[in-house]
């Protein structure tokens, strides 16, 4: 339950029997979980005012976000570990720091980073692997945190946008995005930058892309044309269309030579 002081005096923290029944009708699967995690009346009323079909989705999201909590932290009564459904213990490293959590088996890495570890740089765009906004680097490889279960990260090393700068000095890709205005609203930017950092490593290792000129030549560091950069970055969608600037920024880091700023040359 929430702290008493946070509630209106005349508001009871418990749901009435009618309210429980309403919950049971709407979302039988989630009822016990919701009650166990201590949804109070205020929360309940807020949920009930959400319109139409969205309510189920909204509630599951809320429930899932409630469901990840620290493994070793002294949890408030309503966050007792027993109330976590199918809890899984995971120890992993995030931006150099060891983390230990117990998470609901359903929790994605993206929600864990954002809701449990307060690392809100990684963004939830589509939540279905289609936009790249949630891109993080696991064990050196760029992956989508929205399609990764936190439970599967045992023993792994996760790097997010928050972990790229060294103290006050930005990562070269971050610098280049600033110089080239590689964004407008900035929503896709953390994903773009994490993706670019790992993509440049892939190119150094000689990885190919669908637009590479030849396949059979032995692997060596790949020299990327702008077309190659576009293809290799196609998993990161930018709704603001900052693509020319993004490509220029990445090309500058890749080639090691200054690239003319696109917005100046037009």
């Amino acid at each position, binding site marked *: 339950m929430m702290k008493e002081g946070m509630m209106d005096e005349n508001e009871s923290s418990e749901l009435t029997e009618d309210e429980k029944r309403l919950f049971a009708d709407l979302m039988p*699967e989630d009822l016990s*979980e919701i009650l166990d995690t201590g949804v109070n009346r205020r929360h309940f009323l807020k949920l009930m005012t959400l319109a139409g079909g969205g309510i189920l989705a909204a509630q*599951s999201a809320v429930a*899932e976000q409630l469901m990840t909590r620290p493994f070793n932290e002294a949890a408030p009564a309503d966050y007792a570990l027993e109330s976590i*459904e*199918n809890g*899984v213990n995971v120890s992993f490293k995030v931006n150099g720091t060891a983390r230990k959590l117990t998470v*609901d*088996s*359903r929790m*994605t890495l993206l929600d864990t980073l954002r809701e449990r570890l307060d690392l809100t740089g990684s963004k939830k765009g589509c*939540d*279905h*692997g289609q936009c*790249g906004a949630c*891109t993080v680097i696991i064990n050196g*490889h*760029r*992956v*989508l945190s929205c*399609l*990764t*279960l936190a*439970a*599967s990260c*045992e023993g792994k090393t996760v790097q997010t946008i928050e972990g790229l700068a060294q103290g006050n000095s930005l990562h070269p890709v971050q610098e280049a995005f600033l110089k080239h205005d590689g964004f407008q609203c900035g929503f896709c930017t953390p994903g773009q930058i994490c*993706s670019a950092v*790992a*993509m440049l490593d*892939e190119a150094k*290792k*000689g*990885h*190919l*892309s*669908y637009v*590479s*000129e*030849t*396949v*059979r030549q*032995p*692997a060596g560091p790949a020299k990327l044309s702008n077309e190659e950069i*576009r*293809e*290799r*970055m*196609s*998993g*990161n969608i930018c709704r603001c269309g900052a693509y020319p600037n993004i490509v220029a920024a990445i090309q500058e880091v890749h080639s090691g030579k200054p690239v003319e700023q696109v917005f100046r040359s037009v």
Partner: protein
Amino acid sequence: MRPFTYSRATDPSSAIKMLAQNPTAKFLAGGTNLLDLMKEDVERPGALIDISELGLTDIKPLTTGTNQGGISLGGLSKNTETANHPLVRQNYPLLTQAILAGASGQLRNMATNGGNLLQRTRCPYFYEVAMPCNKREPGTGCGAREGINRMHAIFGWSEQCVAVYPSDMAVALAALDAVVKVRNASGQERSIPLGDFHRLPGDKPEQDTNLPHGELITAIELPKNRFADKSYYLKVRDRASYAFALVSVAAALEMDGASNRIKAVRIAMGGVAHKPWRALKAEQLLVGKEATEANFKLAATAEMAEAKPLAHNAFKVELGNRSIVLALQMAMNGGKA
């Protein structure tokens, strides 16, 4: 997402046993298809068995067995590792191209070879639980049959299901005579030729493949490739990258000595059927013929004459026709070899 138990398997045999014991359990490999479908409430496993740390990631030459001289690709190797492996690049450039034509860099870093083979259709009615779909819920009808079916099949569909199978990798594997190695709960290994792995929908569209519950894909084997010099994967889609195929063609040719005569040819198509579609008719017409544009066109036209388009996808017939010709021409030119 519905609740499920999560466990990490540490070796193949215990993973298979865990799956075989529980009819609602599923293997979790890269998760890029399964988790997406669980979020949509299309897949509802009661248990996930994480197989991503089992091993089975070797990519190695085959020195014995029926595919001696060929290669074995681990069932759990990532798509990125597979596409970029020197043995694959050098000897199976068609496979490299096909894998790289699919999804995005991030997804290929997560996706495994076994999971890729078992990815499910992208039919939008299948993804939307409010819609009828025989594949998702047998007996509810097929939303796409009389609905919006621009992306759907032109070959081998049934009144029960007109969906297409989305994998690019599998189209190249079909052209390369791949064999899928699977293991069951009693530890027995079986080989399933790729052509028999996926199935046409018939009156059981809920069944994508001939792999029974409880079996694990351990590897994919490829015989020695005689097509390495002349092959090409052509993918046609609505945008330049990061989209599923409208039509794709894996073309591979072996010439008779130094002549322009075709000794052997493989043509497989994606985006047109419930499984990778071998263009057998076109292949038959080309064997022993000169590799000319006129012959390519004859073969392509004969193959596509068998197509049965739906209300919104008649364009795939002409697109398929031209794609076959272009892919064969690119293969002849040693496209990207």
